[in-house]
């Protein structure tokens, strides 16, 4: 009897410890980044592009990478939405949502979601070589779009599935075509679309491997789709590899910027999801 009680308590303690490690790892990571990044943070980092000799510790900032990241993540999210909203609607409205074909499509998108970004990067590179595009903003956007489509489709799909079936039945009963019914549904899922946008944007901003071959790297802010663009994660990666202490410090500061951006996006998406869902029929 005592032994059973002991066993219970022993595992209880183990569970609390494990939870502390898993939950605490977030604070450990963010804490490390803040602790190392803050001393190197200054206005130059976010308002200036790299000057000559930036990579040996001279003045400048990573504005080029911040803007480049926003361009690529923004472009990819917009392009991704244009493709994935119709796909999500098609799966749910035209295929009926709950049958073998729809479920196989879901599994296919889940598989696409699982494909590592380095493979998307390599594949994007193949496409670019095939069409003769050089590493550029355009290439980066295409590769990252491939990466975010499965996220968008699956998130939107989940959102559409929460819309009450009665709503579809009602509009169909009034004689609407399935396309007209879809318009009613789209109005209902607007908050969910916001969440999906933020999720995909967050993923796109943080990804390195897919833009490694496709977007190139540049010290300037790109002014056309055919110019190479820097991204923040790649800038962090390059700066960290430098032997100069000052430049390494800038990598920490850049990591801090990226962390803040991504955390704001993540928190915003959950707050927005809650805010908007108030007006929904449930």
């Amino acid at each position, binding site marked *: 009897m005592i032994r*059973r*009680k002991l066993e219970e308590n022993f*595992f*209880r303690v*183990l*569970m*609390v410890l*494990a*939870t502390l490690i*898993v*939950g605490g*790892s977030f604070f*450990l*990571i963010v804490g*490390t*980044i803040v602790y190392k990044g803050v001393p190197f943070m200054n206005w130059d980092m976010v308002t200036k592009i790299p000057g000559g000799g930036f990579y040996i510790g001279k003045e400048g900032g990573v504005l080029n990478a911040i803007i480049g990241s926003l361009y690529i993540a923004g472009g990819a999210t917009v392009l991704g939405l244009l493709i994935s909203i*119709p*796909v999500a*609607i*098609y799966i749910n409205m*035209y295929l009926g949502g709950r049958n073998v074909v729809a*479920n196989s*499509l*879901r*599994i296919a*998108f*889940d598989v*696409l979601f*699982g*494909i*590592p*970004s*380095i*493979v998307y*990067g*390599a*594949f994007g590179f*193949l496409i670019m070589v095939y069409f003769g595009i050089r590493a550029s903003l355009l290439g980066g956007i295409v590769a990252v779009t491939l990466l975010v*489509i499965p996220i968008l489709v699956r998130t939107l799909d989940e959102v559409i599935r929460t819309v009450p079936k009665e709503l579809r039945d009602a509009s169909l009963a009034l004689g609407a*075509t*399935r*396309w*007209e019914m879809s318009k009613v549904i789209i109005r209902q899922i607007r908050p969910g679309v916001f969440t999906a946008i933020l999720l995909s944007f*967050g993923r796109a901003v*943080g*990804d*390195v*491997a897919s833009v*490694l071959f496709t977007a190139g790297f540049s010290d300037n802010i790109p002014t056309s789709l055919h110019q190479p663009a820097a991204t923040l*994660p790649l800038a962090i*990666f390059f700066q*960290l590899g430098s032997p100069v202490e000052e430049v390494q410090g800038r*990598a920490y500061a850049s990591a801090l910027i*990226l962390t803040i951006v*991504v*955390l704001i*996006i*993540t*928190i915003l998406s*959950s707050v927005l999801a809650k805010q908007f869902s108030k007006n929904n029929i449930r």
Partner: protein
Amino acid sequence: MQIRLLKDKIYSKLMLVLTVLSVSVVLVIGIGLYLKSGPVLDHSSWWTLLSSSQWKPLKGLFGFFPFVMGTLWVTAIAIIIALPLCLLTSFYITEYAPNRIRKILVPFVNLLSGIPPVIFGVWGVLFIIPLIQDHIAPHFVEFSTGYSVLAGGIVLAVMIFPLIVSIVCEVLNTIPRELKDASLALGATKWETIRKVSLRKAKTGIVAATVLAISRAFGETIAVLMVCGNNAVTPHSVFDPGYPLPALIANNYGEMLSIPMYDSALMFAALLLFIIIVLFNVVSRLIMARLERKLAL
């Protein structure tokens, strides 16, 4: 009237085309990578490529054994660390934690999943590497720089925490309340109920989560690349540097066009990753889809 119906038809066809196109990306990637790795596959067989450890691109020798082993070591370490921790955490969250704590805990696990890989890499360099170099390695080996498969495994383990925890929690939540109540009513302690009832019921779900986590760990590039040491030698202990496949691809793209067959060999590495990950994903997604359908009934 006619126009409305026509509109519906056109839109439905357009959507069908988009759906088919975006799904077929899986196939197109597979075929593209296979075609591109053709030259190196003509030169030597799958088996020689995978089992040889001679990596000398300049001489046309492409042995992937060290990279496969590097990937396996890092993934295995990550799973060994992450799985028990995540299982215990999931049990705590679903069975023990009061609502108040659960409400604080779950968002933080989600926040962790939003952190980009490169940040995990920076954290690995700043925190894990010195930890291993100064505090862990000296107890076991004479010298280690800290850049090792162990470091890669630890960083990866933290990266896959949210994935495993969220799936396992979901699986645990679907176990019927009555089943647990019955066990508790017979006088079993909570832990005994978990071990003998929940664990048995959740087995398939946990396997699916693990397979998914393995595939995620397999393909992770930049975080592992930053902490693994990237030495093309088969690792023999956890303190040896390793060179996983994704890191190989990422590190060498710049020079690959100038050496014959090099790009083909790297595309073969990507193909290998692609095949393994698609297989793993299909298997675990099928398991989970079946679980979901069973519960819907």
